[in-house]
């Protein structure tokens, strides 16, 4: 999965209000044996979507999902906790999401998401409650201004780590940035050992 730039997006929300949605829910471990970076969308939330025999569940909340119109996932607190698997943001992106909004997003997931062009947005509790209560509402997420505008309900602000933000907007490559520090790294290695 290549990193895609991100600046602004208007889309409807898809709401999963449960708290502690861990990366094993986002993509179960048995789908982690692939050595590729793409194609994980079909495994996204697999056990929420399919029964033990691999048949689509009639009761799945994802039956109401449309990848063309629902690019913003609104999730309960502590989204993305658990395993550090980067397959989780890969799966969400491949499935169709570009933004995850919650009151609280797990550290490693957040870091992985930012590196792949999936924007993790942490909003205040009141805004979060409003979003949870209005599934399908139209929301504009503006990374340059770090704002979330909810149709008819006003605006909220969020913070993204400044370097990650620049990387997303301007397409700066973090590995390129690190490779540019090679002189400092060599100096450190000489001094330290």
């Amino acid at each position: 999965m290549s990193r895609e730039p991100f600046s602004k997006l208007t889309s409807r929300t898809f709401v999963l209000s449960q708290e502690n949605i861990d990366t094993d829910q986002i993509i179960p471990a048995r789908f982690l044996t692939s050595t590729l970076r793409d194609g994980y969308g079909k495994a996204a939330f697999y056990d929420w979507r399919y029964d033990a025999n691999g048949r689509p569940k009639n009761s799945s909340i994802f039956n109401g999902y449309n990848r063309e119109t629902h690019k913003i996932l609104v999730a309960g607190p502590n989204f993305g906790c658990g395993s550090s698997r980067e397959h989780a943001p890969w799966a969400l992106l491949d499935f169709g999401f570009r933004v995850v909004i919650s009151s609280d997003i797990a550290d490693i997931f957040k870091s992985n998401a930012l590196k792949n062009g999936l924007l993790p947005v942490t909003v205040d509790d009141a805004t979060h409650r409003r979003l949870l209560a209005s599934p399908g509402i139209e929301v504009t997420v503006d990374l340059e201004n770090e704002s979330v505008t909810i149709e008819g309900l006003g605006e909220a602000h969020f913070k993204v780590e400044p370097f990650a933000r620049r990387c997303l907007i301007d397409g700066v490559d973090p590995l390129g940035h690190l490779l540019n520090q090679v002189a400092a790294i060599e100096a450190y290695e000489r001094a330290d050992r």
Partner: protein
Amino acid sequence: MKSQSLFDKVWARHVVVEETAEAPAVLYIDLHLIHEVTSPQAFTVLNERGLKVRRPDRTLGTLDHSTPTLKADAKGKLPYASREAEEQVAALIRNCDEHGVELLGLGDPRRGIVHVIGPELGATQPGKTIVCGDSHTSTHGAFGALAFGIGTTEVGHVLATQCLLQRKPKSMRVTFFGTLPAGVGAKDMALAMIGEIGADGGQGYAIEFAGPAVEALSMEGRMTLCNMSIEAGARVGMIAPDEKTFDWLKGRDFAPKGDAWDQAVEEWNGLATEEGAHFDREVEIDVSALAPMITYGVSPDVSAAVNAFAPSPASGVERHAADYMQFETGKAFSEAKVDRVFIGSCTNSRLEDLRAAAAIMRGRKVKRGVVALVVPGSEAVKRAAEAEGLDRVFIDAGAEWREPGCSMCIAMNGDAGAPGDLVVSTSNRNFVGRQGKDVRTVLASPATAAACAIEGTIADPRRYLEGAGDVA
């Protein structure tokens, strides 16, 4: 100078470029551990960009997640869960070979779960920065290392530059007071700590575990505690090194030798948190009245004493979890029938853990109908356990004694529960489906898991302590 914490000191020593408002710090990594699941895509990026592994000498690979725990068949063929799993293992072998990285591969007597072998080889040392594409890298913090899990993109960063872009996290100290009662151990402390802080309470923090009850723990116990920092949301959990740490490391393969050892110990002695060091948050936990703990929900912070009763769900989330776990409100947990027991994982698969389980299983039988799996954390643990006859204890009790690996902790190698099974597991995650589709996981200590295997229900291990009366 301002008083510094253990974490402050290790962090400061590894800053290559200071952090600014615009950019995170460039942090040097002393040891990079890799395994088959989270590394292939990182090597692909390296190869695409024509980059080399900067420090193969600081990189160490092992095979653990996808590897079978059953022996090879007569033709020498290992029973992989799928062709993809086999290909994933082959990819790591190929990548390590091409990039000159040492791999503790299949058949290597040093192979094992990544967080078990690092300390076992003495590669894990106080004051080091250690990363791995695996969230339980916090385990290595038990030695006073700054160790944390990273994603695959970052695995690529470390392979290419031996560095990571990181902002310094906030700090939290969790102090454990009191003396642990008999039959209660580090796993119970970990579950109590997670229950106290919450599954997201440690987010954005590096935790230091301190206090008399932590000092009293063995190195194995300290590893169990640091291992589960991530279940409280913290990427880092660390403990100041002391004599126990040094004794544990001395003489191990990768540990310094001779004069270098004395020098290292002197340096390590200076790592402890100074009086007056600042912590953004302080938590205190008294362990004197702690009971053996179990989880009864689908998040590791939902726990109770093993002899408690299932509470009535207080919210929608709790009801959802209760529906999944099927513990009947008001009934004792000990009435719940257990289908499987798993003793293993980087949380509890070291020799001390196996001894604790064997002490309860010795001379007893696993309850009919219960499948019990004992999976040592490494080849070395397996050999040591067999040398003292623990394998016989488990086999005679009717449990299965397997080859080392992650096994049912993540259930991606084919070892899994059946839908609906109630599994008592010494691993670290009780998420929905973690141990197989629709499997219900109860986390517990090795002693508790062993007692559950014997009784076929959730059971209190204190009943099996020598000279124990009836524990209510």
